[in-house]
């Protein structure tokens, strides 16, 4: 079993119980898991393969889905399901055959209400994952701004 970032700190039995709430989905290469703007009801833990997260961009009068980030096995995608307004802000596609566990928000809510320590651990892992991605994108943004400054001052 891969080390899943959302379930870190939980013992194997507890992690197994949380995973049992979910549904295993196998995506074919090129299949879309969710689209930008869709209602977000589930968070997805990648257990095999990889997910591409893209945003639309206009390139020479054409709208193209541009890669924003890639997430490999062990990581989660679709955490918009756990944070309001529960709408996906990216499009997720499997570039190769990929397996995910879909965890429904309502099922998680009910389980965490009954098991608050598990809920606390998962909430902490969620905050860490979101914080990590925020830091990554802050860094990438600052590097782009630095390049703009250099090109303007050249």
């Amino acid at each position: 079993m891969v080390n899943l970032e959302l379930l870190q700190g939980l013992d194997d039995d507890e992690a197994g119980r949380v995973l049992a709430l979910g549904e295993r989905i196998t995506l074919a290469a090129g299949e879309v898991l969710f689209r930008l703007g869709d209602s977000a009801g589930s968070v997805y833990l990648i257990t095999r393969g990889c997910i591409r997260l893209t945003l639309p961009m206009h390139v020479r009068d054409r709208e193209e889905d541009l890669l924003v980030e890639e997430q490999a096995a062990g990581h989660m995608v679709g955490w918009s399901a756990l944070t309001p307004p529960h709408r996906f802000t990216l499009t997720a596609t499997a570039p190769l055959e990929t397996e995910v566990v879909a965890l429904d928000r309502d099922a998680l809510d009910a389980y965490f209400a009954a098991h608050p320590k598990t809920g606390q651990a998962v909430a902490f892992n969620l905050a860490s994952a979101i914080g990590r991605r925020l830091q990554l994108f802050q860094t990438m943004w600052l590097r782009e701004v630095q390049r703009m400054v250099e090109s303007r001052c050249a």
Partner: protein
Amino acid sequence: MEMLLMGACLSILGLAVACLAFGAATRGLEEEKPAASVELKVAKPAVATRFFVAPAEPVLPLAPRPQLTIEALLLQIEDHVRLEHAAAESYLASPNAALLHSRTVSRFVN
């Protein structure tokens, strides 16, 4: 008498040298004038200057840039995103200003 003749010869010789020098000097100026006017013509703007109208900027010939296909451009952008992601990961593993502004080999921005 001899002294008078010698003085006259020397005077004529001096006058001749002075004339030659003057001729050479004025001929040099006349030859330079057309060159200066040519330079001035080159320096003139292509469009007549008017109030509130900026003179036309000289157009520098640009090196022809090969037009990438959209697919090639998208691949360059994807590579760029991956490289930037990796650079950001390196920075977060060991935050310092040098890593934050490390150079990229990305063809998209180079």
